Every structure is written in structure tokens, then in C-alpha cells.
């Protein structure tokens, strides 16, 4: 077996030691003056090594950077080990609320309720507990309500690189035309950002 490049080892060490996605910018800040590592190339190199040496993990591109993740085959064992036998999937209410928050963020509680037409306190609490949304500042509207945004864990959970990678919002036209047929189905998760997705930043 070959001795691996020192740069690859630095990146690997960071991947092992941190639960936050590594980005080129963050990496640059860890290096001494004059020391440069091209993150993309290094990740490819490492992933290639992990694949060839048949590891149980790989480097995933998510949340704006890279993170180590285990292959699907080990889900069963890991789930049992960390004692989350059924990682509780999100309810439709939670997903719908997340969709609203991710598109409209930052958004207030009343605004969310207005769109959903129902009381959403419970759902928001659940999302906060699971660290999928967080409070960030206050709106300038009367009563200065708290503003909610999605978190990095949100991106990790859905395997997204950024919130603009979300499935796009369907245009109204499409909904009207799709009203009676199954065109809903055909809407594949779109990996690219759409016009609508811009306003979430």
C-alpha cells in the first residue's frame, strides 16, 4: 500500500474530526501561509482510495461541502447501534412546513400559519428539536416576531448541497393543468435551482 499524500491526510483528518461539511474556504483558513490544497482534487483522490480499498464509507457532497458518510448497506447496524431503530421520518405537515421555511426564509411563525391555514406551533417545535430549523433574528413587523431559517442539518438530512437545490416550486400553471392528471408524478426532484429558489438566500 502506498503512503498517501500529506495534503490528503490533512483533509482526511478534518473529515474524521468534524461533523461539519468541509469547504475550500474553510480549509484555506486552517492552512499555514503559502500552503495550498485543492479540495476537489483531494476529495476525488480520497474517494478513489476508499472505493478501491473497499471501505464502508465515502465522502459525500452535501451542505455546501464534503462530509464522510457510510454506505447504505450498514444502515441496519448503525441504526441499532445508535438506538434509533426507526429514525422517525418527518410527517407531511413537517415536510410542508419545511418547504415553506426553506423557500421563504427568513419567515415568521404567523406567515407560516397563514400559508398552511393551520396552527403550526407544534410542527415548528418538532423541527427545532430535530435541529432542522433555527431562529435567526426578528422581523421588523409589529410585535417583532422571531424569524425562522433552515439549518445545515436540514441540508444534511435531505442530502442537499444548498437550499437552492430543493425541488422547485411548481408554477401555478402547472398545477392548474396538472389538476386532474398525474403530471405531479413527472416532476422529478430538480437538482438545479429555479427562479423561485433564489429568494431563499
Amino acid at each position, binding site marked *: 500500500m502506498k503512503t498517501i499524500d500529506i495534503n490528503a491526510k490533512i483533509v482526511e483528518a478534518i*473529515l*474524521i*474530526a*468534524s*461533523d461539519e461539511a468541509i469547504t475550500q474556504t474553510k480549509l484555506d483558513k486552517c492552512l499555514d501561509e503559502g500552503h495550498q490544497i485543492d479540495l476537489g482534487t483531494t476529495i476525488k483522490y480520497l474517494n478513489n482510495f476508499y472505493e478501491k480499498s473497499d471501505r464502508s*464509507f465515502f465522502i*459525500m457532497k*452535501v451542505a455546501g461541502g464534503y*462530509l*464522510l*458518510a*457510510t*454506505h*447504505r448497506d*450498514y*444502515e441496519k447496524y*448503525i441504526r441499532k447501534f*445508535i438506538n434509533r431503530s426507526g*429514525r422517525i*421520518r*418527518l410527517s*407531511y*405537515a413537517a*415536510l*410542508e412546513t*419545511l*418547504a*415553506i421555511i426553506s*423557500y421563504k426564509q427568513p419567515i415568521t411563525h404567523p406567515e407560516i400559519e397563514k*400559508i*398552511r*391555514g*393551520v*396552527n403550526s406551533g407544534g410542527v415548528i417545535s418538532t423541527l*427545532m*428539536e*430535530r*435541529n432542522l430549523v433555527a*431562529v435567526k433574528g426578528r422581523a421588523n413587523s409589529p410585535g417583532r416576531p422571531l424569524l425562522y431559517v433552515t439549518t445545515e442539518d436540514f441540508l*444534511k*438530512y*435531505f*442530502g*442537499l448541497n444548498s437550499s437552492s437545490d*430543493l*425541488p*422547485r*416550486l*411548481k408554477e*401555478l400553471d402547472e*398545477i*392548474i393543468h396538472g*389538476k*386532474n392528471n398525474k403530471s*405531479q408524478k413527472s*416532476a422529478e*426532484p430538480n437538482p438545479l435551482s429555479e427562479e423561485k429558489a433564489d429568494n431563499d438566500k
Partner: protein
Amino acid sequence: MERKYQINLDTFEGPLDLLLYFIKRDELNIYDIPIAKITREYLEYLNMMHTLDLQIAGEFVEMASTLMSIKAKMLLPRFSEASENDDIEDPRNELVQRLLEYQQYKEMGKEMKKLEEENISYFHRNPNLTYVDRNIDAEEILHKISLFDILTAFKNVLDKIPDESIPHEVQLEDVNIDDQTKYLYTFFIKKSKVNFSTVVKTIKNRVVLIVTFVAILEMIKTQQIRIYQTDLFEDFIIEKVE
């Protein structure tokens, strides 16, 4: 009328969801909703919920009144006569806009469900920072605790204690930090970790509780214990430092 009510009562997230269901099922034109028909259906549904003794949320009732008010406005001669005229607003417009907007997010929620399914079997690296950062000063480490968390935890505990025990003046309480430090150590006889809620569960007096809390902070400071959370809003875990 033998309409099949194969409506799963829990499936509707709210009144908008229910209305969308009617629109889809009956293949109605969302821009030209037959308001009388849909109001009737809606009210039938509420009646049925009522008959089944299901609790009807306020939002459903509110929507019923919205529908009836739209229906009433539609009957006003001013609207029916001028229905061709663009500058008189259709009383249904606002509802239609809300339905359309809600529908968009509902659809997106479904797409997100797919993403969830695709990603749920991956687990990301979850390092134990206690060991990885072995040389990092404990003072510098905040184990996922935010301002909100601390206030929440403290307040949570304060809330469990009846108000009567709040002293309005400083009273002499038969408790001090040393006692409470000893009390904390009793939890570490058998194991090295204990939940914050377990520690404070039996404490019924606010002052004793505050002293215990201060004792915990003191022990963290002197590094006798460390405290962390597995997640936001989770209980704190207090761990003895050897």
C-alpha cells in the same frame, strides 16, 4: 346521496388541504370554484366529524365562515350583474390564491419526502469531540449549547416548582453549594453520567434548585464535571470528569 366517504379523517393538514381534496376529487376548476357546492360539501364534512365526536379545530370552523361569506357575496346583485366586468373583484379570489399557494408547498413537501427516503440510509460522520479535541481547553468548548438552550433548561426547571416557594425576601435556606455538590456526587457512585432532569427531579424548592444549578456551574468551571447535550432541546447530560 351515497357519496363514498373514504376520507381518512387524519389525512388533512387543515381546511385548505380539505378544500383541495374536494377540488381534485370533483375535478373542479380552481379558478371558478362552484362556491355553493363546495361549501355544502365542506359543511357536510364538518358535520360528519361532529357526528363522529371528532374535535374540530378552530381553523376548520373559520374556513366554514369564510366560505359562507364568499357564497353570500356571490349572491349580491352587484357581483352577479357585473360578473363580466373586470374591475369588480371576484369574492373568491383571495381563497383561490391561498389554495394555489398552499398547493405549491404541499407538492414540494411530497418531493422532499422522496429526498428524505433517498437519504435516510446514509449516516454522516459523528465524531466524539470530547476525545478528538483532547487538547482543547474545556473553557473553549460549547457542546452545542446556545443561549436559548440555557434559558430554556433553567426556565423549564423553575416552572416545575410552585410559585409559593419563591422567596420575596432573602431567606435563610438550609442549603449551600457544598451540600449540593455532594448531592451531585451521589449520582456518580454507580455511573459517570447522569441526566440533568434526574438530578433536579426530586428538588421541590426553588432556592435549593438554584443553588444546585450554581453548584453544577461551579463544578463545570472547576472541571469536576462536563455537561453536554445530544441535541438541541434534549436533556443535558452531566458527566463526571475523572
